């Protein structure tokens, strides 16, 4: 029953409306508690945070840190691992490799070292859920979870074709429970299956997905509806069709409109905001303005940005045709996988170059999203790690958002045509510390439906990051002074003091048990594995925590 008091810190907690006010934070048993009413209460330990900035731990709501595609990417890039500084073993921590796809233990250490204490993998095929949980088991300190790929699932598409909403909802609930996943993810809905069947990718929401007799529009609407009906803590998480293609903003706009008010999260929206013609790289342009207007005006929509950062990284996606496209464009090595009945996968190394017009535009388009979005509670900082860059580049992005002069300086150094094609040069907005706290913690926690994350109010998990204020924001956010996880000091000045096991968040929505035998019948006809080996049981989650549906206690 230890009692910890963090004294005199400048607390930045937008949920409580605190913007740098000097406050004490009280912690008992890993949770934040209200300051004791009786002044005679003495804490067991006091942490002096005088002059320091105190925030909740960061929450990364969309990254790729576990499962088969991440593992393949690690194996696929020995040339990068060879040069990247390794994580050395200490008496308390294990060794690991870094680069754009760090090894499991290194991922946990590096996230925590950055002041991030929660991270969600964004794309796990249910068939690979067991593998993903095993990797998360070896990803220490941070709390984590993953989203389950359903946008190209055969059973899902069959229910949509037959118009059986109830059965779809029960299946989605059963599948989330079987995978011990957290949310429903749709990646290039319909397009991956269409491409896998050899018909090429879909081009818009109303292209038919051959053989299944559905359209991307139907998949998006029905999955969003199912997630909503199940009152999942996080709504449908959509990776729109046509990622990365010039002119794809129309598809993104159509996706927003197709939702017709249903809640949904559009992820790495930067990659979906491009103007220009498909065969003309010179016409590539930003179409953030019309899209951000829709997001600004519609409370049901949230986005994360998927910011591009210049440098070498690895693209990994459940969007099989996208992997193929990137391989064609870059000429780099390519991995493609077909997860039977469920999903696809593409992995390609990519280097974003500041002197490339396309790459510099992608960089500017991401920043346009941050600067034009009016409500910071509905936009989240992400790089789609490692697709746009690694999570270790978040401090650099924060620097770009907080310091317009620095932003202009970088803008001057990139491909000159960006000045003409992007409105970035005219945007003078500077993010405040409080807004940074929103887009890196409070908003993602709220969008994920995690009530105990992203704030420092009573009842919150005591995941706390303490920064030394510095006008050099990259420096300030790269090296927090202290990071606490569940009330325990984990990082001091970049040194990992302890590496406990974090939680794995999952959901277990109710479904009709009677339908399971029908799912089993279908499953045994189509899958290569036994039904009994499919569902992941609790043993795979060393510290599982089931998050209740919305509206329940």
């Amino acid at each position: 029953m230890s009692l910890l008091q963090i004294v005199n810190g400048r607390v930045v907690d937008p949920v409580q409306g605190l913007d740098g006010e000097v406050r004490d934070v009280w912690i008992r048993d890993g949770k934040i508690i209200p300051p004791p009413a009786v002044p005679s209460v003495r804490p067991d330990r006091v942490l002096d945070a005088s002059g320091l900035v105190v925030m909740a731990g960061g929450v990364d709501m969309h990254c790729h840190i576990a499962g088969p595609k991440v593992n393949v990417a690690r194996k696929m890039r020995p040339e990068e691992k060879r040069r990247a500084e390794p994580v050395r073993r200490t008496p308390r921590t294990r060794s690991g490799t870094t680069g754009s796809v760090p090894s499991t233990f290194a991922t946990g250490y590096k996230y925590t070292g950055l002041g991030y204490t929660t991270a969600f993998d964004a794309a796990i095929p249910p068939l690979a859920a067991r593998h993903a949980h095993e990797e998360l088991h070896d990803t220490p300190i941070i709390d984590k979870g993953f989203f389950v790929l359903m946008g190209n699932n055969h059973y899902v598409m069959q229910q949509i074709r037959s118009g059986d909403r109830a059965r779809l909802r029960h299946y989605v609930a059963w599948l989330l429970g079987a995978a011990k996943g957290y949310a429903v993810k749709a990646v290039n809905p319909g397009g991956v299956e269409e491409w896998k069947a050899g018909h090429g990718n879909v081009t818009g929401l109303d292209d038919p997905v051959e053989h299944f007799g559905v359209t991307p529009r139907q998949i998006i609407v029905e999955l969003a509806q199912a997630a909503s009906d199940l009152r999942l803590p996080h709504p449908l998480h959509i990776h729109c069709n046509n990622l990365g293609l010039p002119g794809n903003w129309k598809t993104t706009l159509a996706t927003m409109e197709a939702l017709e008010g249903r809640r949904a999260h559009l992820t790495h929206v930067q990659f979906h905001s491009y103007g220009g013609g498909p065969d003309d790289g010179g016409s590539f342009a930003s179409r953030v303005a019309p899209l951000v207007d829709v997001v600004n005006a519609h409370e049901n929509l949230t986005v994360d940005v998927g910011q591009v950062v210049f440098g070498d990284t690895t693209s990994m996606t459940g969007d099989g045709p996208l992997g193929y496209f990137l391989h064609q464009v870059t000429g780099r090595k390519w991995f493609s996988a077909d997860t039977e009945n469920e999903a696809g996968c593409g992995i390609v190394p990519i280097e974003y170059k500041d002197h490339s017009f396309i790459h510099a535009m992608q960089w500017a388009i991401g920043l346009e999203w941050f600067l034009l979005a009016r409500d910071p509670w509905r936009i989240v900082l992400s790089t789609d790690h490692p697709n746009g860059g690694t999570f270790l580049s978040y401090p650099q992005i924060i620097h770009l958002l907080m310091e317009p002069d620095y932003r202009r300086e970088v803008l001057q150094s990139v491909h000159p045509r960006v000045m003409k094609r992007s409105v970035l040069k005219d945007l003078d907005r500077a993010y405040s510390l409080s807004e940074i706290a929103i887009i890196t913690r409070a908003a993602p926690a709220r969008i994920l439906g995690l009530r105990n994350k992203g704030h420092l109010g009573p009842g919150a998990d005591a995941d706390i990051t303490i920064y030394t204020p510095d006008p050099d924001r990259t420096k300030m956010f790269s090296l927090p002074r202290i990071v606490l996880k569940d009330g325990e000091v984990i990082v001091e000045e970049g040194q990992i003091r302890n590496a406990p096991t974090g939680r794995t968040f999952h959901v277990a929505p109710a479904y009709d048990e009677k339908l399971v035998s029908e799912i089993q019948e279908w499953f045994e006809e189509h899958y290569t594995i036994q039904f009994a080996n499919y569902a992941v049981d609790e043993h795979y989650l060393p510290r599982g925590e089931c998050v209740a549906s919305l509206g329940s206690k």
Partner: protein
Amino acid sequence: MSILLRLRNASPIPIEAECLSPDRLEGLAVKEIERLEVDHGNERARVADFFEVGLRDGNEAAVIEGDCSRVKHIGAGMTRGLLVVDGNAGMHAGAEMSGGRLEVRGNAGDWTGAEMRAGRIHIRGDAGHLLGGAYRGSRTGMRGGVILVEGSARNEVGCSMRRGLIAVRGQVGDFPGVSMHAGNILVGGLPGVRAGAGMRRGSLIFFGETPGDSQRQVELLPTFSYDCTYRPPFVSLYLKKLQSWKLSLPVPAGEGRYRRYSGDLVESGKGEILVWQA
């Protein structure tokens, strides 16, 4: 004066000794060299644990004596000076070097001169696999410089090489010039199977055919197409240059003609294989 390192404790466990390069040894006293760290299996050790360090007359930066076939990374990353291994050298000798000269009087291990950028490696004996090659996952192998081998070399000589020259007096194993982007590989003997597989540009030149002997012919992949028989002038220039480096291929410069094949047609088809015929 040059530094002399004499191997006295040969170990069956490999020693990783990146410090054995002119750049690292230059200006150090004997005592300091003895204290340099090396990896011995999974343990840290010092140069003095394995080598007797001294000085000798000569203009080499350093001479390493003994059978160093279990000593890895000799001369790796070197940028200047002359380093002589009077004996065998282990894996990765001269890997990623960007200048200077490395001479191995015995045999050299795998990955010799891997991803080197400039400089010259001269091996009196045989070389291992992936001579001047690319490390796994890398896009390019050797990017410049010269590798000379008086004996033979094994598989994947010049894998993914982008520039530079490799000359092997004897045979080479399978896949010479696999996936090469550019550069020249000259082979005095015969290659193993699948020469130039996946090559995009560059020249592979084989001098080892014996007319009338069906066992001693160059066998090419079906994705190389015959163009013509001619005498490209650049080959004679290369042979003369090799002679100035004291490497003579078993062919009189300026004589004979070459069959030219284009390939690999599964890639751009802009590479060439030249087969010398007397």
